[in-house]
């Protein structure tokens, strides 16, 4: 009996080795663990759609009600900065996708490089956004704290074709800017959370955590990052490009 037990013991060791260290105890297989995590992430993104959806719904209604105010508000934004930021975010989605690819091909150095690049691009976006916010503050476009209708009851030098708004409609630009700050603010908050998570991921990737087959965290973070990017892809035309088609 004893000799048999000793003989079978190494075999048990070997079967135990089939389970990689990152397999959590309550999953049967690595495959199940990975599918579960990805499914959870997609579901989380669904909740995020509903979260932003409330604001998009408000935007839809007020834009229909106060279209001239929304146009006037939109014409106070810098299309150049908005376009640059859109380009920056799309690039960051590319670097993130390359990061996921590097994790899959088990290339630690490339993974770290791509993640760091993503952090840099994320920070560039946030920097430009902060600059835009600062400009809004100086132009008295922040509803509640620092707002004046002054810019909307006179001609906008950048858009000589726009007529000045009557005072009651000029007041409604506050709704536009409320939504502008709420929507881009929530988006920026998601970016800040994303960059913070990226820093943690880089620190872990440094120790080789994601380049030995355990790709799921990078992959799922990538989903989150692309989602935040897509939100911006909607925000950019809705906030910056109103009346461009005319």
């Amino acid at each position, binding site marked *: 009996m004893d000799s048999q037990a000793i003989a079978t013991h190494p075999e048990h060791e070997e079967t135990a080795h089939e389970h990689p260290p990152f397999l959590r105890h309550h999953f049967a297989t690595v495959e199940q663990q990975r599918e579960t995590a990805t499914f959870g992430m997609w*579901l989380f993104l*669904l909740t995020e759609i*509903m979260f932003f959806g409330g604001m998009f719904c408000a935007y839809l*209604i007020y834009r229909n009600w106060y279209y001239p105010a929304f146009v006037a508000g939109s014409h106070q934004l810098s299309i150049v900065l908005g376009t640059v930021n859109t380009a920056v975010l799309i690039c960051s989605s590319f670097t993130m996708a390359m990061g996921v690819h590097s994790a899959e091909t088990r290339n630690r150095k490339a993974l770290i490089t791509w993640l760091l690049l993503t952090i840099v691009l994320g920070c560039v976006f946030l920097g430009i956004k902060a600059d835009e916010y600062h400009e809004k503050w100086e132009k008295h476009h922040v509803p509640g704290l620092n707002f004046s209708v002054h810019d909307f009851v006179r001609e906008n030098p950048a858009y000589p074709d726009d007529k000045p708004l009557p005072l009651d409609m000029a007041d409604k630009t506050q709704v536009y800017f409320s939504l502008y*700050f709420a929507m881009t603010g*929530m988006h920026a908050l998601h970016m800040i959370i994303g960059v913070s998570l990226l820093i943690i991921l880089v620190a872990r990737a440094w120790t080789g955590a994601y380049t030995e087959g355990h790709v799921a965290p990078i992959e799922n973070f990538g989903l989150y990052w692309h989602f935040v990017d897509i939100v911006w892809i909607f925000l950019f035309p809705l906030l910056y490009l109103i009346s461009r088609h005319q």
Partner: protein
Amino acid sequence: MSTIVMLPDQQTASLPKRSYLNEEYGLKSWLLTGDHKRIAILYLISITIFFFIGGFFAGMIRLELLTPPSDLMAADTYNKMFTMHGIIMVFLFLVPSVPATIGNFLIPIMVGAKDLAFPKVNLLSWYLYVVGGILVLAALTLGGVDTGWTFTTPLSTHYLNTHVITAGLAIFVAGFSSIFTGLNFIVTIHRMRAPGMTWFRLPLFVWSHYAASVLMVLGTPVLAITLVLVILERVIGIGVFDPAKGGDPLLFQHLFWFYSHPAVYIMILPGFGVISEVISTFSRKRVFGYTAVAFSSVAIAVFGFFVWAHHMFIMGVSNYSALVFSLLTMLVAVPSAIKIFNWSFTLYKGSITFETPMLYAFGFMGLFTIGGLTGVFLGSMGMDIHLTETYFIVAHFHFVMVGGMLMAFLAGVHFWWPKMTGRMYPEGISKLAALITFVGFNLTFFPQFILGYLGMPRRYAAYPPEFQALNVLSTAGATVLGVGYVLPLLYLAWSLKYGKIAGSNPWQATGLEWQIQSPPLTENFVETPVIDYEAYDYEWLANKTKHEVQTVG
């Protein structure tokens, strides 16, 4: 037909040596646990605390309404009382009541998994709940909130100087706790089912939790963003809901009720799950029309998203949309009735026994039916305009929430208490408590239907003297109800030490959770179960028991 299984002799049962309760000791092992069963216990303790805090406010409200003038407390104190009662009971008790406690404990076991899909997220959701709870208590101790639990703008954003921001943040945070619970359940039910556990072998408890989770995951984020906008409006003065700046308060109502109406189904659907299990077990029959009951949960979840504007009939929504929402509201009665009828058919020709969970389940069926039908009254526009904002509506949602959900919660706690703790509750006194609860509940809330119909408005500290007799009845009932709620607290605590040892399957129920030891092991199953029988298959259980006896003999 029902299959009779003899109850096993509990004299011979003994507590298992190893279980999730004694796997580790110490406070840290609880506060940092990833075990869904321990997190369920943490939730059970915290929601019980908040239930009694919320209950205290209910007591104060009833005490004030004992006499017509506002004499016990000033009118604005009364406003704070009903607001704190509403916030605590809705967000800190009813929403997490069954899912976060019983659901958390049972869903992994019922699908045959070792844990929920994301144990750390599960623990995080409890911590978010606690942070939300602490923020509510902070708002309370700083001086309270008096918006009502609905945070109606512009009252909440402009006209009150109470702690709306703290309370709003509390609900925002607690909301994420419920999102994470729902997300965890959905992923677990999809991805963690044991071999052979097909969708139509799942207990109906799992189906109803699945439907409730869909509502949590899709509805709660909308509440979260709405509260963010209210907080931003209050703190820095943005104008999304502010009419002075061009915003529309009605939009707030739309967004708020887009969550808060489905939230009603978040609160009741898990209760349906409990009732299905209890009714089947104590009639020893498969739930009649399993598929219909399962899909009626899903139907309630789907319809639940398209009826929110029935809270707004008097708020100036267009007559045409009110008409559509009124019709859709009545549609919800169909799946609800399917459930009630199917449970009744389950009882038909069953071998019914009257254990405590069954008594609560009977209470649920009666009271929920009244609550649900009065909901149809309120869904029809003409009636609604007469009855809304009166005590009729208060009575209606208390019949559904307290008479329905709280009864279901107590049924569930009693039913699974042996599984959670390994010990039985005392049967005699618990039957008495169920009876007291039922009598107290009817005495408290039935007079309110009449009061509301006669025109007594809700949310006022004072009322005309002709309403006093019915209000005295209601307050007397609340006292009885209070006794009915304190009793279980006492005897369940007592049973932790002195209760009879339960054994693994004291009810001879068919669920997977009853086929493992009580209290369960941390990993739930010694080896992954393979399911080759339908849910509620008492024949299978009888054969299995016979087989076990033969092998032992």
